[in-house]
């Protein structure tokens, strides 16, 4: 399948996940700024493993921009992109050990944790206060759980899609 078409489909899917996530407001139960399931991260992880790091980055950054234009604020867009860049970086590094040292679940959990560190750091800069780091410990524990769940889902999807040639240009 052409990569451009694949990327388009993945961005659309990621947007749907971002939309669906609005109906699962984790912050109603655990009122912490920045807490969420991270369903759209499933798409990023699948793209990273099955296509390549560049496509995963394009898909994720475009999804952050589009989702926050539709459902967010300029500020939430800054947080999301900061988190996404850190998450993409760490997951790209860990991918080099995919199926040898790390499974999708480990890669996904690392991405979730990195995302939270990135968005808290961005929040500290925007709000000009380090007080927001108060929520980092809880967010990290939460990211372990959510990253684990989204990792299992991503792994299932990857196993099913592996026969398809998503990363070819022909």
């Amino acid at each position: 399948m052409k990569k451009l078409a694949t990327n388009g489909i993945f961005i659309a899917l990621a947007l749907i996940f971002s939309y669906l996530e609005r109906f699962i407001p984790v912050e109603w139960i655990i009122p912490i700024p920045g807490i969420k399931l991270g369903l759209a991260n499933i798409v990023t992880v699948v793209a990273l493993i099955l296509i390549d790091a560049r496509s995963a980055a394009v898909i994720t950054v475009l999804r952050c921009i589009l989702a926050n234009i539709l459902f967010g604020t300029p500020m939430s867009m800054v947080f999301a992109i900061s988190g996404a860049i850190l998450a993409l970086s760490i997951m790209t590094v860990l991918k080099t050990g995919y199926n040898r040292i790390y499974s999708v679940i480990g890669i996904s959990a690392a991405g979730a944790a990195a995302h939270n560190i990135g968005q808290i750091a961005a929040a500290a800069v925007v709000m000009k206060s380090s007080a927001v780091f108060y929520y980092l410990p809880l967010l990290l524990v939460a990211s372990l759980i959510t990253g684990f769940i989204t990792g299992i889902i991503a792994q299932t999807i990857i196993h099913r899609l592996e026969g398809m040639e998503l990363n070819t240009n022909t």
Partner: protein
Amino acid sequence: MKNGEKRKLFYLGDFAVFLTILILAAVSFFLVSVKPSGGKLTAVVTLNGSELYRIDLEAVAGRTEFEISGSYQELLVAENGRIRFERANCPDQICVKTGWISRPGQVAVCVPAGVIVKITGDGGGEEIDIFLK
């Protein structure tokens, strides 16, 4: 990978990742829970980094309201020894759901509005009960 080939669900590195996250959580928890020593129980309210109110929570007699008008309208309420966001017209309402905070080091944040309420243990001078900037 071909059918029939066995693949592991977890690898050793995964546990290293999980452990690293837990260690980071523990270390950051330790860092943010270092309590300020002594002094009065004070709530410091900032809007986008600049201080709005410094409220001596031990001196507050009954219910005291503080209004904040930035990009959103918010109502802070202080009682003896505690403070909370009572009302806000921000989109996520996380600040309101955070509820009362009362211990030194505790933080309530309204990210959309850029408002942070932080409780410190060292309230500074005794001559000022409620210091408005």
